[in-house]
Each structure stands twice: as structure tokens, then as C-alpha cells.
């Protein structure tokens, strides 16, 4: 397998883009990534696009072809990847594998979702499709409800509190205020979260990531070539993906995502890195409890200590480990198909020292963690900056 690096990245502002279409968003991110890489469209040999539910959100399928067409990249092969909220991360992994295998030297990765064209009811239904239709959605389960079941059990087993859950949201909003691409630019308090009303107890409205429009894109390149054409490539040090049962009830434990643990173990074994070697991580905080599970399952903190670690400020920007410096899904927004790609865009910016006010100091290794559904798909990547052309 060949080494692969990111040589360009682009992202749109995340938020409610009522005035802008799916196509405009994906083209903006794609063009920004090409400009950042300083290459021509004709140098791109293949495209992988993450998108979860465009059929329900905008009545459009066949997104692979649409993206290539809109970006003027025909006739290169263009493939849509769907893995629920992990669509973007899995698209990145497929592009990475395509370059690592030697099939292509330069490949584009896109991620996009336009979620605000439909009512909240339709959006809820579209997102619900990531769960098990026959044993969960049929019985009235929503996504917040599935994560609420994990949260309640974590509180029971480890004494995690609703205040600690709220603190995840408070921290991520604080980081988002430093990120011009983030949906929310307003700090919130623990009281704001606690008073925001239950969606599915113990989770409240402000424990949940929002409905968001947005797109993100990356240009991947074989590393030897990347060193010749890019001043500061960011190497994809490792990629791992794991699957678990679609239905939450079929898992042995409700207080961990087994797929996260398995993919993380593979990452650490492949690279020889330890959790303490990671400077920052963009983790999948679709709900506050999801960040607590992630920082435990990724090995940053002991199982059960995630809530307390958050309370002690150990996950804040430039503390023990900066978790979600971008603001995460909660603060930056969660356009589902774009999220996994946007996490890698943040890693790229951080490792190049280009993250502005939210810059993680002395960042060496950055990790991204993208989850589909209630944990049935998990994809993890680790990145580091390398020397390029002078």
C-alpha cells in the first residue's frame, strides 16, 4: 500500500442555507479544495462523494454523477458512498484506499447534505433510516431516543450526570465561536442546556446536534507526488473501519460503541501510536453522550470517566486533549453526509497551523472519528503534517 496525503481542502459555511441549493454547496466546497491544492480539475482521476439521504431531503439520487457533472469533472468515475452519518468518513476511506492501492494518484472526496428543504418530521424520518426500520423505527424510536438509552445506562453504570452531558455541549459551542464555518456562533451555559426541554430523556434539545446544510471536500494525492506539488501535505497515517449490529438492542453493551473500540485498536496497532500521542480529535458528537462514549472508546479516558473528564475541562481547547476544536457536530453543525469529510478538513487545517483562533498548539497527530447510526458503522482516520516542496 502506498502512502496517501491530503493536498487541498474546502468547506462551505455550515448552517441553514435557504437561499442556496445542494449543487451550489457541493460546487463551492469542490472548487475551494481544487484552488487550495493548486491543481486543475483535469488532474483529478476519480471522485468519491459521501451523502446520506438526498432522496428524502431533496428528491435527488445519483449524487456521484451529479457532483462530477456539476464540477465539470466528467468523464472520471464518480461514486456516491452511503453509510448514514458516516457517509463522509467512509467516502474518504474509499478514496484513500483507491490511491493507496495504486489505482489512482489524485482523487477528490466530497461530502454534502442539504437538510433544510423539508419539514422537521421528514428530516427525522430520513435520519431515522440509519436505525433498524423493523425493530426500532416501527416502535416509535427516534435517533435521540436511541442515544438517550445509551446515556441513561451510562449514568446508571458510571454515575455520569445530566450536567456533565451539558458540559460537552457548552464546550463545543465555545469552540464553534472560534470557527467562522460553524453554524452556531454563540456560547451557551449549562443552565441553557438543562432548560432546553427534553427530546428523549435524559437528552434535551441542546444535547442534540442541529439540522444543517453544508458541504466539504478534500484532494488526496499519493505522498511522493504530494511532496513535489504541495508545500505542506497532511498525510493520512492510518484508516480503519468497523461494523456492528444495526439495532441497538442487539449489542452486548449500551455504554460503548464496539465498532469504535475495534477500529481504534486497529489504528493504534497499525501506527504504533498511543492515545496520549494524539493532540486533538474530531469525534462524532451527534449527541452529547456520543462524545463521552467516543473519548472513552478511543482510549483517551478510562471507561466511565468521560463525563468527569469533560467536567474537569480535560477535553477543552488546548487542555489535556483538544476534543472537537472545530465545535464538533453540536457547534459546527451536522450536515450528515458532509460531516466525516468536514472532520478531516479540520484536521488538515489544524495540522497545517491554519485553524486561526481555535488552533491547537503544537499539534502533531490529529484523529477523526465518524459514526453511522447508533454505532453500526465507525470509521477512524489519523493524520500528520509532512514536509513538502520548498
Amino acid at each position, binding site marked *: 500500500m502506498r502512502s496517501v496525503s491530503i493536498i487541498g481542502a474546502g468547506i462551505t459555511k455550515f448552517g441553514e442555507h435557504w437561499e442556496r441549493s445542494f449543487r451550489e454547496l457541493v460546487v463551492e466546497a469542490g472548487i475551494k479544495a481544487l484552488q487550495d491544492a493548486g491543481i486543475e480539475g483535469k488532474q483529478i482521476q476519480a471522485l468519491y462523494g459521501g451523502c446520506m439521504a438526498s432522496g428524502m431531503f431533496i428528491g435527488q439520487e445519483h449524487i456521484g454523477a451529479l457532483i462530477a457533472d456539476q464540477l465539470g469533472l466528467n468523464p472520471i468515475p464518480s461514486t456516491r458512498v452511503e453509510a448514514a452519518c458516516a457517509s463522509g468518513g467512509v467516502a474518504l476511506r474509499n478514496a484513500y484506499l483507491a490511491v493507496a492501492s495504486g489505482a489512482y494518484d489524485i482523487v477528490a472526496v466530497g461530502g454534502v447534505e442539504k437538510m433544510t428543504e423539508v419539514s422537521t418530521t421528514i428530516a427525522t*424520518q430520513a435520519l431515522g433510516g440509519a436505525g433498524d426500520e423493523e425493530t426500532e423505527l416501527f416502535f416509535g424510536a427516534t435517533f435521540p431516543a436511541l442515544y438517550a438509552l445509551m446515556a441513561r445506562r451510562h449514568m446508571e453504570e458510571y454515575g455520569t450526570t445530566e450536567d456533565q452531558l451539558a458540559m460537552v455541549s457548552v464546550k463545543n459551542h465555545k469552540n464553534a465561536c472560534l470557527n467562522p464555518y460553524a453554524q452556531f456562533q454563540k456560547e451557551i451555559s449549562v443552565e441553557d442546556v438543562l432548560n432546553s426541554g427534553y427530546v428523549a430523556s435524559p437528552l434535551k434539545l441542546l444535547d442534540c446536534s442541529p439540522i444543517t446544510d453544508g458541504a466539504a471536500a478534500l484532494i488526496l494525492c499519493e505522498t511522493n507526488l504530494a511532496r513535489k506539488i504541495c508545500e505542506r501535505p497532511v498525510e493520512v497515517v492510518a484508516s480503519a473501519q468497523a461494523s456492528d449490529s444495526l439495532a441497538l438492542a442487539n449489542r452486548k453493551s449500551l455504554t460503548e460503541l464496539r465498532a469504535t473500540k475495534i477500529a481504534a485498536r486497529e489504528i493504534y496497532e497499525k501506527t504504533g501510536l498511543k492515545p496520549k500521542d494524539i493532540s486533538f480529535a474530531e469525534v462524532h458528537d451527534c449527541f452529547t453522550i456520543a462524545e463521552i462514549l467516543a473519548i472513552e472508546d478511543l482510549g483517551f479516558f478510562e471507561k466511565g470517566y468521560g463525563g468527569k473528564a469533560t467536567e474537569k475541562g480535560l477535553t477543552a481547547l488546548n487542555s489535556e486533549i483538544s476534543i472537537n476544536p472545530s465545535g464538533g457536530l453540536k457547534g459546527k453543525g451536522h450536515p450528515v453526509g458532509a460531516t466525516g469529510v468536514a472532520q478531516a478538513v479540520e484536521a488538515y487545517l489544524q495540522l497545517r497551523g491554519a485553524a486561526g483562533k481555535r488552533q491547537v498548539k503544537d499539534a502533531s497527530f490529529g484523529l477523526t472519528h465518524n459514526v453511522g447510526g447508533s454505532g453500526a458503522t465507525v470509521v477512524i482516520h489519523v493524520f500528520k503534517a509532512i514536509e513538502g516542496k520548498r
Partner: protein
Amino acid sequence: MSNYALPLIWRKFPERYNLLGNKCTNCGRSYFPSRKICPNCRRKGHLIEEVMPKEGKIISFTKVFSAPEGFEEEVPYFLAIIELINGVRLLAQIVDNEDHKVLIGAKVKMVFRKISEKDEESPIAYGYKFKIVE
């Protein structure tokens, strides 16, 4: 929720009305809903029908305030992960109880109820729910 076609609903009757699952005679594991192959043994497995026990206990629960389509009139309602006495887990609503009795570890038993009603034209979906055993 989805617009369930009638054949899908009929196909699910034995499962949703009577907790019909299956069991692998090779490794002894029980499955609900039933599976087409034993994920533990794959081709070595042999699955036979098995009706699940109707009693169990709550592993975790949530009170849902923001409902999907077809469940608006039920709000707020309890959902729980239940472990049946044979160890099989499933997700179901908890009904007919005072809120303070819905707790982790509480004993429950299956009841048969209407699950959702989308509109007047759609078929009404029935299936299992659980209630607390005093």
C-alpha cells in the same frame, strides 16, 4: 414513519404478535427477530423457530417527547431496551404504568397493543409493548 405496505405488515404478524424468533441448534443462541443465518455459526448453524418468553427486565429506558409521524398522539411515551428471561434483548414501548415505576431493573411482561396510526387510509399497525409487573 414509513408508509408500510400491507404485505410487509402481514409478513411481520407472527413476530410482532407472538414474539416468534428462532434458535440455532448448533450454538444454542436465540434470535429475535428471527434471522436467516446464525451470525455466530454462519453455514454450520441450523435455525429452528422459537417463541420468546414474554417476561424480562428493563436494561435502559427513555421518555420520548418529540415523536415521529404516526406517534404524535402517544407523546410522551416510554421506550426501553428489555432483556427477556432467555437473555434476548429487544426495544419496545413501556405502557400502562406510573412514571416512577419505570426504572432500570424493573420486571416487565409483554402486552399486545396498537403501535401506530398514521392516517385514516393507512393500516393500523399492531404489535408488542411491555408493562411493569408489580
